[in-house]
């Protein structure tokens, strides 16, 4: 499976919320990883230029929570979510 992923480019739509959105200056953008990089939320994060992986941030892929090393598929919706403060 890992090899399959390494052999194709991966484009995902990245969503940012709240403080992350303000820091980046955008809310939704496509990002593409080359065919030679394993496509995970952590790898995409490196492309965002938002510094080290921030503590407390959760990841959702296609609106389900996943781990930071979850394998992504081309066309996925990937959201980075700062700590929740609702209620």
């Amino acid at each position, binding site marked *: 499976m890992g090899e399959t992923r390494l052999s194709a480019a991966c484009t995902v739509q990245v969503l940012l919320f709240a403080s992350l959105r303000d820091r980046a200056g955008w809310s939704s953008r496509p990002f593409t990883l080359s065919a030679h990089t394993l496509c995970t939320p952590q790898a995409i994060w490196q492309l965002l230029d938002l510094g080290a992986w921030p503590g407390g941030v959760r990841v959702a892929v296609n609106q389900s929570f996943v781990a930071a090393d979850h394998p992504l598929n081309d066309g996925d919706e990937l959201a980075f979510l700062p700590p929740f403060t*609702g209620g």
Partner: protein
Amino acid sequence: METSWRFFLLSREAEGMTSAHDAVQVAIHSQPFSATDQLDRWLQRAGSAAAATAVFMGHVRPETMDGAPLEALELSHYPGLCERLLLSFTQQQLSDHGVQSALVLHRVGRLSPGDLIVLVAVSGDRRGPVQRCCSDLLELLKHEAPFWKREWSGGVGTWLGANTPL
């Protein structure tokens, strides 16, 4: 502004989201709403009132977490995921506590001090389970649902890093 619009439109679509059986009513409101009006409607819809009903209402404080006067509280959410999680939490909690019905309403958008943020109501046959279910649902809304608060004071907006302690 574009971002805000997108949020509001999605929020409106989500208003009145109701599960297959009427026992669970979950909605995200982008405009002010009256807690007692909503509560009244929900209690009436339940037909004969259950023996025990526990309710929680959260309103915007007049001060920031740091004690400065609050101009506004901005609330955003992750549309779609947020509504589905609320519905799923609520159904799970009803089942876990063995209670009959629940109403969960949450505001997003720009709120003023005193505005209603959240309304949780739980009805069932026994006072213990409905009170615990209402309290547990509130903690899930605070810690497990993708909502974010930004306090506005002196023209400056600050995203909250964590909720108020229980």
